[in-house]
């Protein structure tokens, strides 16, 4: 149970970093951006987005400021910090290596062993 949560959490963090790396977004915008990039293949529990955002901000990967939304309402915008950018790169590399390894393992045929 815990392990699954950790994995999900880590993934969500990475997706958020990716979403805001393309430009400042408010929370709802981040949700939409992820759904859009993933072509709605990922289901994200809406509420769980915010604790993740606060954690990332607390760690200094992203920063926030209040701005105005498309329909003239006050909204909190998040952007990637320099530290967040470095962090995202290493995380993404790690993730890619991991998926390659796992894909290779899963794709192994009996005769190759």
């Amino acid at each position, binding site marked *: 149970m815990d392990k699954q949560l950790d994995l999900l959490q880590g993934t969500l963090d990475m997706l958020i970093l990716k979403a805001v790396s393309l430009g400042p977004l408010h929370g*709802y915008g981040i949700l939409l951006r992820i759904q859009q990039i993933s072509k709605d293949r990922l289901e994200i529990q809406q509420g769980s987005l915010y604790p993740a955002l606060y954690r990332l901000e607390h760690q200094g990967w992203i920063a926030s400021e209040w701005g105005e*939304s498309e329909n003239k309402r006050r909204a909190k915008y998040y952007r990637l910090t320099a530290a967040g950018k470095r962090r995202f790169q290493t995380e993404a590399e790690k993730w890619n290596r991991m998926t390659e390894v796992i894909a290779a393992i899963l794709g192994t045929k009996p005769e190759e062993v």
Partner: protein
Amino acid sequence: MRLWSRLRSWLRVTLGRSRMESEMDAELRFHVEAYAQDLVRGGVQRDEAMRRARIAFGGIERVKEEGREARGASLVESLVQDFRYGLRMLGKTPGFTLIAVTILALGVGSNTAVFSLIDALLLRSLAVPEPQELVHISYGPPGQPGPLSGPMFDRLRERQSSFTDLFAWTNAPMVLTENGVARPIQAAYATGSAFPTLKLTPRLGRLLEWQDDEAGGANRFNAVISEAFWVEHFRAEAGALGQTLIVNGAAATIVGVMPRSFNGITVDYAPQVVLPFAFETALHGKSSGRFEPAQRWLFAMGRRKPGVSNTRAQANLAAIAGDVLKEALPAHYQSVDYLRDGGLSLAPGRTGNSPLGEVYSRPLWTLQALVGLLMILCCANLASLLLSRSLSRQHELVVRSALGAGRMRLIRQLVIESTMLAVAGAGAGIVLSQWMSSLLVGYIEQSDFPVFLDLRPNAAVFLWTIGLAVLTVVLAGALPALHMTRFDTEAMLRSGKQRGLSRRKNRLAACLLPLQVALSLLLVSVALLFAVSTGRLLRVAPGFQVKGVTLFGVDFEHRPEKGEARLELYRKMLDAIRQSPGVEAASVLAIRPLSEAGIDQSAAAVEGNGPEEKHLFQNVVGANYFATAGTKVLVGREFSQVDRSGGTPVCILNQAAAKFFFPRQIALGMHVRSTMPIATLPNCEIVGVVADAKYNSLRQPAPPTIYHPYEQASLIFPDFDPGFITRSRGTSAAVAAFKDALHRFAPDTPLLPVVTMQRQLEDSVGRERLLAVTSLFFGGVALLLTSIGLYGLETQRVTQRTAEIGLRVALGAQRHDVLRSILREAALFFVVGVPMGLALTAVASRFVGSLLYEISPLDPALHAVAVLAMLAVGFLAAYLPARRATRVDPMVALRYE
């Protein structure tokens, strides 16, 4: 950078809490509304869109809580939150809070009070470096160690090798003359080795050294003063050094101030001035006791050399004891009571000397045991109180858990509340204990002898109190917390009932009740035992009148009148007092009845019982004494003005002595002679026999006593001054008369504390009164607590059973059936608790037996009364809620269900 951002985020969160909350709120609301707007754009109705958006978002409070946690807000913030919440919860139930804090304050307060007294009297080390190296060196028959004589101390100090040094110390009340006014002070004599051996550092100047204690010399003596005396008399100015004090009529120069923490070597006597023994030798000349082999008045202590064990020191002492005693004891010592069969012995000296502690050690430890039991009772009571409160909070806890509070958070909340109660209770307890210990000291204090006790709570007392508070939290707070939070939220919410849980908790509370009953029965029985015993002691006929009799001490040591002139001074003062308005009779006496002092005598009859000798108590009294004191003269006459020096030596026996010496004859006109080695009194003619009167103690039967007239005895004891005794309509008349006489005839002597005979009597049973009053108080508290506990439990049970009772009434049960069924339930606690309590009391009675006077610790009538009291209070506590149950309206009860 990362650290900085974290710190900034944490600071922002901690300092700007309300801003963070409102921002978070705005942000989350924006999200929900933005999503709803998108749904509306997709063709959904506005209200429906909001509803769906909220569902899609999930539990907003849980998100907020996780958000706070993610920002590092949670630890400090949520503690503060829990604390605030706890305060609010306690404030919402002021009755509960007040009772809980009061219970704790009573438990902690009485424990701390008794313990600080025990600490001050028996446990606390002297405030000197390495106190554990100190030992007492005593002389006396086995089991009765006492002071040394001057020669014993000197010879011992010459020969010993296991101590860095020895010193002698004697507390002596003295008279200080300041600007012509004389007043009593507490002072002490010390050998020059005292302060170096104690390793004390002066507060100011220097302390006494060997050269200060050298005999002879220039008749200039040095003294050190206590810090309190320094502040009081010299406003803590350095100019005090070099000033002269007039003590007992002689001058001494102040050379230093003792440190504040050092209050002498006797725990209840804090000398204001300490003088070298050489001062005493110079003052008294030939009559000084410093080098007198037959006078034992020096308390000797030593400091073991590092590395010398107690056993080695003891062996060393045993090796030299024979020679020391051979050189130091007077030739005739075998015939002197207080020198016979003695030996030198060592005892630990870490805590100093505590004569009061010896007297009060058993009563105080008994009290400590009682308050310890009271504390257990308080904890049990508090636990059941917290448990029954938990029932009413069940709903709140279930709701909080449904809203996302974790189990740890709930437990933490409950523990925090218990801690708050414990802290409040302990705080109130410490305040209460200050007041209680001064009350306790009041019972210990003798009116003519001020008791100094350092009761400032120290680390030991604080640890003890905090330990008790923590114990309470664990027992009464955390354990029920574990118990209470183990529930299935969903099932509880769905059923809306708390049945399963409450019955289990009820059972725990029900187990605690018999324990409370047993403990309070024990406390009540013991209290009754002490109260009845003390009551019997106070009703004993002492053989003298108590009402209207007042005693006055005098200090004529430095009056110029000697010999006949001194007798004339007494005559003039007595005449003046007798003629004062309101005074009915007046006389003088050497030994106050029921004081700790006494004069020994052994005598034999010249005629009658032949040569057989008898140990007697002796008193020296003036003319008209027996009329003044109200002791009946059975045969013959009492002393009068004619019994003067030069006349026939006369004496009066009490009935016990007369019966011994002259069992078959009339004592009147017969003679007795002293059989003391140094004949202290000539053969005297018996002129009267008086009724038996108590001498030292109300507990002991009146001992055989012989009375001598003052004017004849003064020849034999030239240096002693009897006190005055008056009988008057009111104490104030007697005090005024005495003050007036003192002022007219001896204006430069101090007015010593005035003591009424009533007070003298009460002081002599101080130990018994202390036990009786305090244990009655504790017993009362125990009864009250138990009845509160029972009342609380029964009330709650009746509330739970409302529906059942309603149903039974609806089905035709009579009111008294309901009443009986509830009372029967309550009776069960007593069926279990009372035998338990009786068994406990039987065990305890073995320890209190020796403290009782003329009552068996197993006295059946008394224990019956205790059980009845317990049952009566219990019945009342159960009857009130039961009667409420009988008023249940079946319709209302059933509808409610």
